[in-house]
């Protein structure tokens, strides 16, 4: 109990004291995960819509890949990205291993199937006649996709929440491709792991509290938007 109490006191001190090191870690976590979520939305929403609306050979196989991807462990993604970006790997010449960009790439790959899969399900759930009605009103193909995305917006918002929740809390990939370098690639999750392994439970607890508060705040904001939309 004493440990917990110490941890909470330390957390409050770090939070209120404006510790520059902690502040930098929080900022980097947010930046990396928000960019990764945004990128996965930009790529995943159109992919999900295309998979939902088109019919072609191999479509089912692609959908099964997306569904598997939704549950893929971050360490596996981390390993794949690490192999790609390793100095002697195929993309090693880019020299971005152990950089925030490497973490963003890994997190985007984690969130992309989640966003794609949820968008696919959302668009497939719309009444098929909605599509005919949009075309009947004289929409071009792009106008139709835009209106369909708007109709599925609540589910796409849920996809954004799920994607963000997945990447802000993952630790394996960030550790493997970021390297947990102080001041460069240390994010909240990797810092928590490090502090815990050093026995600094108070700092680890403080970092976890911040992580939880961040995840909660952003999800809450999205939930408010979603529920306000839904209210009649």
């Amino acid at each position, binding site marked *: 109990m004493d440990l917990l109490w110490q941890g909470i006191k330390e957390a409050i001190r770090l939070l209120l004291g404006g510790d520059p090191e902690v502040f930098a870690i929080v900022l980097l976590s947010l930046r990396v995960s928000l960019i990764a979520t945004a990128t996965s939305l930009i790529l995943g929403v159109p992919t999900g819509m295309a998979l939902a609306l088109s019919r072609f050979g191999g479509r089912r196989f692609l959908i099964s890949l997306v569904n598997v991807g939704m549950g893929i462990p971050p360490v596996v993604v981390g390993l794949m990205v690490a192999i790609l970006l390793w100095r002697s790997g195929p993309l090693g010449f880019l020299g971005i291993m152990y950089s925030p960009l490497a973490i963003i790439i890994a997190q985007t790959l984690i969130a992309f199937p989640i966003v794609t899969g949820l968008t696919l399900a959302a668009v497939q759930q719309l*009444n098929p*006649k*909605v599509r*005919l*009605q*949009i*075309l*009947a*009103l*004289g*929409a*071009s*193909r792009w*106008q139709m996709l835009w*209106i369909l995305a*708007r*109709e599925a*917006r609540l589910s796409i918002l849920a996809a954004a929440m799920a994607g963000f929740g997945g990447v802000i809390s993952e630790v394996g990939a960030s550790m493997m491709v970021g390297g947990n370098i102080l001041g460069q690639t240390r994010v909240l999750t990797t810092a928590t792991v490090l502090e815990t392994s050093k026995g600094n439970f108070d700092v680890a607890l403080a970092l976890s509290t911040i992580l939880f508060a961040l995840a909660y705040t952003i999800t809450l904001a999205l939930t408010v938007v979603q529920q306000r939309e839904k209210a*009649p």
Partner: protein
Amino acid sequence: MRYGQKTILRIPHLSIAEGEILAVIGPNGAGKSTLLQILGLLQRPSDGRVFFDGQEITGCSDLVALRRRLASVFQEPLLFHGTVLDNVALGLRLRGTPKNEIKRRVEPWLGKLNISHLAGRSIAKLSFGEAQRVNLARSLVLNPEVFLLDEPFASLDPPTQASMAEELQNILAETKTTTVFVTQNRAEALMFSNRLAVVIDGQIAQLDRPQDVFSHPANEDVAAFLGVETIVEGRVLSSAEGLSRVALARHEILVTGTYPLEQEMLFCLRPEDITLLLPNARAALGLNANVIRGTITRIRPLETQLKVVVGCSFPVTVLVSKQAFIDLSLARGKQVLLTFKPSAVHVIPKRLSHER
């Protein structure tokens, strides 16, 4: 039109004239909606060609420009996120119409469909009837050259159905828009159309003026769908001076018209054309022709009348008013007489009903 192996629509030829209102009627799953979607350029037919305004459009690549000259309304309102005004303006906005022109064109239609007061309301707060009005306004505001309606009133309650049908009838009379109207409702079909197509099993079973379709159904299926409940096979015994003697099972009746002798024909009777009497009325009324004796086998109450099935050597359905039902103290098992005019019998050549 085929889905996989199954042919669901086979139309050798159908042309719709400018300004015409064509009603398409038929049972569920007959292919009516598919026909409408092909006409609305929302589905490509698996075979065959579609022409619009004298131009073949089957293989046309720019369907969007052509679709913008048509408008389709479906059974469900299918409105989009936003207000009533957003929805009515949507089609115009998709066409890149300037804002002030959208406003100028939308307003009169909001008025005509009595939804001006709802303009700023979110679609989530509309009743079904209001939503369907928005749906109609959304298409009518586009001033389409062809207006395609797929059972637009089918999901509404009967009073709303009747009043909206009447409003739409007035609007169409004013705009003179070429219209194809799919319905299962016989009254709507009669009320709206210049021509009536009966679609059964993916084929146009009959295409004619509505009153002719109702009075002279082309075959047994059309007759049955249009509410002719009694269809009996018979043989013409003699035919002279516009009157024929016909053997229906073990009865003999008189039918208006001259028909080939000894040929199997189908004889149709509408329930409302048959009068039901008690056996003792025969002598009193001096009836001798077209009187059939039978026993009541089934009674089904309707809104204002009762539907009574009388078993002769074949079942005959008759409509009886509630008052008559009480006065004649009708009940199951009671012996009654049925009588009808020779002109009430509609004759269909039997051969046709098996031509598929």
